[in-house]
């Protein structure tokens, strides 16, 4: 009797060991989804003056030579500014990227054209008003002092859409209020006007 029990235990134990040591061999397979590629689009804009003049070149210039090209001088010099004076010029902004954009900010930088003479000409930025709007519809982007524009970038009053490959013609009007004051006499500055675009999607 004891012998049989011993054998049974041995058999059971052996079986358990055999079962415990065997690897699983279920049926399996694998498959891949390849070719998942991602490419990002681009937000790219360019801007050129747009009054029928040679490009590139500044929109506003006091003397013809400052408005080059061509080397003989730009076609539409403004001459000097004084209280009550105002000029409008145009900037053509083009979407050269692959994503639709909004023009959403504008800004400017102002530097003294005569540095080192002990007079800070950049104060003139406080005496000039800049109005930026869409030329055709008058949709307003910015209306305020040049000084406030340099503190920017400033969010535009309205978002201006430019579809891929499309353009927007902006009208810049720079004027000197009639009550500007003598502090702005005899000042000379160089200004860079900047426009900013962002993706339209998802915001």
């Amino acid at each position: 009797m004891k012998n049989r029990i011993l054998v049974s235990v041995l058999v059971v134990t052996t079986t358990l060991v055999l079962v415990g040591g065997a690897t699983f061999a279920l049926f399996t397979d694998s498959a891949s989804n390849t070719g998942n590629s991602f490419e990002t689009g681009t937000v790219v804009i360019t801007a050129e003056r747009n009054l029928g003049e040679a490009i590139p070149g500044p929109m506003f210039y006091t003397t013809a030579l400052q408005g080059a090209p061509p080397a003989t001088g730009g076609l539409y010099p403004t001459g000097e500014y004084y209280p009550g004076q105002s000029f409008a010029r145009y900037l053509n902004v083009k979407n050269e990227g692959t994503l639709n954009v909004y023009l959403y900010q504008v800004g400017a930088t102002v530097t003294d054209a005569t540095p080192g003479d002990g007079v800070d000409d950049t104060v003139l930025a406080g005496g000039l008003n800049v109005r930026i709007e869409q030329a055709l519809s008058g949709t307003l982007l910015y209306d305020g002092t040049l000084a406030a524009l340099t503190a920017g970038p400033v969010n535009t009053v309205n978002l201006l859409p430019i579809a891929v490959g499309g353009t927007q013609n902006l009208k810049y009007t720079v004027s000197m209020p009639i009550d500007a004051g003598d502090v702005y006499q005899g000042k000379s500055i160089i200004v860079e006007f900047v426009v900013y675009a962002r993706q339209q999607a998802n915001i």
Partner: protein
Amino acid sequence: MRRKIMVSLLVIAVTAVMVGGASLAIFTDSASNTGNTFATGTVDIALSPASALVTHGNMAPGDSVSGDLTVTNSGSLELRYAMTTTGDDASTLDEQLECTIKDSSDTVLYTGPLSGAQLGDRVLDSGDSEVLTFIVELPLDTDNDYQGQSCTVSFDFAAEQTANN
């Protein structure tokens, strides 16, 4: 248990800070138009001589003195100027003295008491100048009340831009 809650709160707090602090990094671009120049003009009126145009000491009734004043627009903008006279509060001699102002073609622009000498609205283009002749005379019928008196006056010129004005 309390420790687990504390740790969870800490993780949540740190995540919130990280999310809140992140700036929006959408796609953007900018374009510039450079080299725009703006220059303002000047209104600048200059006088020559700058002082003592007409002076006379030891005047007797009938004496006169004249001087030529060159008024120049030394600014870049066309200007319009006017002249008034600051008299001498301490004296009445400036009211007794007679002043005549003429332009270069001898047209009389003012004649009357020196203390009230004035000119109105004369226009000068940038770089232009004109000569005004001032003649100051102690009238012959000036009485003894005016013996031993003196006065000093200044001719004050004010100019403004003509554009948009």
